[in-house]
């Protein structure tokens, strides 16, 4: 288990040394789990605020607002879920043969990027149809919740990208892969919930 000593900078292929205690959960994974836990409460706050607004509104969806692209987003949701599954596959292969783990990893990264770009494209067309932050409570919450999710997706993709580079150079420790995985599964896992509550 990697353990950095005080005074050691920690750059380079192996930033490791010495093990005093074998943790049940590696440092990086535990740190990421805690972060994801806090982020989950953020989404819980946003989604419950949306649910309260929706329940309290006399008409829902508000009049004169475009319909959300339910079908196109269903396909996009499938792409994101597939990306998560490919990452799982990569994980399984990483344990036995590190080289063969790369292909599903790149595919997961690609599908994730596609998801974000497609969401951006949808936003542009929705704005064109008159759904904006100011146009209605639906617009405000839609851009808020989907936007916060997109920011998480972009950050997680960045981490996946760094992980991929380490993987190519053969520097990737199993716990580092697990850390990136936790973040991405969070982004993938929370999206169907958002789709269910916000779109449908």
């Amino acid at each position: 288990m990697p353990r950095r000593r005080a005074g050691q900078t920690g750059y380079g292929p192996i930033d490791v040394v010495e093990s005093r205690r074998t943790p049940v959960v590696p440092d990086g994974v535990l740190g990421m789990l805690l972060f994801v836990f806090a982020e989950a409460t953020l989404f819980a706050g946003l989604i419950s605020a949306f649910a309260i607004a929706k329940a309290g509104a006399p008409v829902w969806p508000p009049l004169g607002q475009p319909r959300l692209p339910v079908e196109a987003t269903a396909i996009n949701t499938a792409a994101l879920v597939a990306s998560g599954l490919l990452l799982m596959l990569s994980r399984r292969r990483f344990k036995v043969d590190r080289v063969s783990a790369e292909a599903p990893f790149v595919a997961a990264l690609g599908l994730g990027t596609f998801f974000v770009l497609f969401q951006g494209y949808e936003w542009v067309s929705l704005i064109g149809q008159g759904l904006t932050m100011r146009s209605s409570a639906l617009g405000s919450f839609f851009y808020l919740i989907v936007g916060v999710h997109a920011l998480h997706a972009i950050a997680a993709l960045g981490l996946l990208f760094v992980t991929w580079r380490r993987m190519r150079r053969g520097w990737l420790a199993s716990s580092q892969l697990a850390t990136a995985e936790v973040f991405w599964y969070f982004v993938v896992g929370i999206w169907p919930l958002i789709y269910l509550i916000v779109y449908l």
Partner: protein
Amino acid sequence: MAESIPASHGDHEVGHHEEQGFVSKYLLSTDHKVIAMQYMFTGMAMAVIGGFFAYAFRMQLAFPGMDVPGWGLVTPNDYNALVTNHGAIMIFWVAMPVLIAAFGNYLIPLMVGCDDMVFPRLNRLSYQIFLLSAIVLMASFFVYGGAFGGAWTMYPPLSAKAEYSLTQLGSTIFVLAVALEFVAFLMGGINFITTAMNSRAPGMKLYDVPMVVWMIVVASILFMASVGPLIAGAIMLLFDQNLGTAFFDPDRAGDPILWQHLFWFFGHPEVYVVLLPATGIVAEVITTFSRKKLLAYRTILYTVFGTGVLSFTVWAHHQFVAGIDPRMAHVFTVTTLLISVPIAEMMFVYIGTLYGGSIQYTTPMLWALGFLVTFLIGGVTGIFLGASGADIYFHDTYFVLAHFHYTFFPIAIIGTFAGVTYWFPKMFGRMMNETLGKIHFWGTFIPFNAIFLPLFYLGVAGQHRRIYDYSAFPELAQYQDIRVFATSALLVMLAFQVVFLWNFFHSMFRGEKAGANPWKANSLEWAAPSPPPHGNFPDGLPECHRGPYEFSHPDREEDYWPQNQPA
């Protein structure tokens, strides 16, 4: 991978590292002790600012319309900005950074017996973001329209609309500063929990972890579980302020009460976030100075977990008057009264620990005992406010104000002084002056009660909060003498803080040298030299053989038994 380890990183050379310049050693260091000091000194500076604000608005209350020395005329807008920022500073920029970040950073690696935090660079970033948040908050006093004055709870529409807050930029900056501060503590909390779980010394089981470490860990978990909804609310509020959304705007189908839910869902657990580290400090101090084993270690631990869970079910007791279904008010009354049970039990355990001990009245012990006494009053008066029937009368009066000062002052000030005076020898390698320490204790403790006990009376008499001049209210103007008395007590208390500052800085350089373990305490930080060098334990990282509270063991000649001493 083990074979690629350079030999120079073995245990025996931990203390040896290249000389660093001032900037890299004190400003950009990733050493947990340096970061702890950064948090502590920033917190102290903010406490001076927050205390100065209290002085300015208390002077206005006692002598309305008079020029306050050092501030000038306190206008109604000034008054609002002062009370708002006093509250926010004392909770978010004093209690949090000192109790959790400074003590957490300093104590956790030392007490679990490792050389540093698990994520040292994240730790440094955490402080830098915190410092930025403090600077951003202070900047709000210099923008057009002045600082935000809509209370630290930031209720919309007062905080959301420029027509009401009169300072668009000031209120945006305020929300932004609070949000930044939370990001900093999120990073800190991740570090505290991970370090306490993964870096414990060999042999240290979960029940051997000192109580203060457990308390900081649980406080960090509570913080992380509650901060999300508030961040969500803060983003929505920033959008309402600047992007023209209407999340909280009742004119445009928004819901201002929604903010109160999001805020207090965080706000009530936040009380426990700062309370728990203070009770942890008190546990360390009272066991050491009564030379007795902590009564019911596990019971306290389970109590704390229970309190943590319960603290998420009480938030709407802040909204009894804001318009809540009376049936829900009943539910929240019950949960609120229930949460006083575990805290009362914790008090009994502490008193039981003291019972029959050989008590040494050192300065830290006086602070710890002072904590128990004052916090008890804070807790008991909270019961009146938790019962919805009584709260409808007490709501927004000085009774509420006196109540939460009887909780936050013991936590943020008394608890902090207990911790600082207890670990000062470890931090700086020298002892503080005991006589000055005791003068400072009594000079703080007596005036504190003299300020806030009368305010309970004013609250019961019907004095409403957030009014900057009571002379226009005939039925309240008669109590002017009490206001003058409370303000005079505040002046006395502030004057006595000079004694502390002198003692602190003088002892830092001139105090009597302290050995590694001046209090004869057990936990692992006392096994390191005072002050601990970079890497903490130059003779090799310690191993743990027993729990931290083995005082006065019948089979031993000495009345203490350090955790790292082999049996």
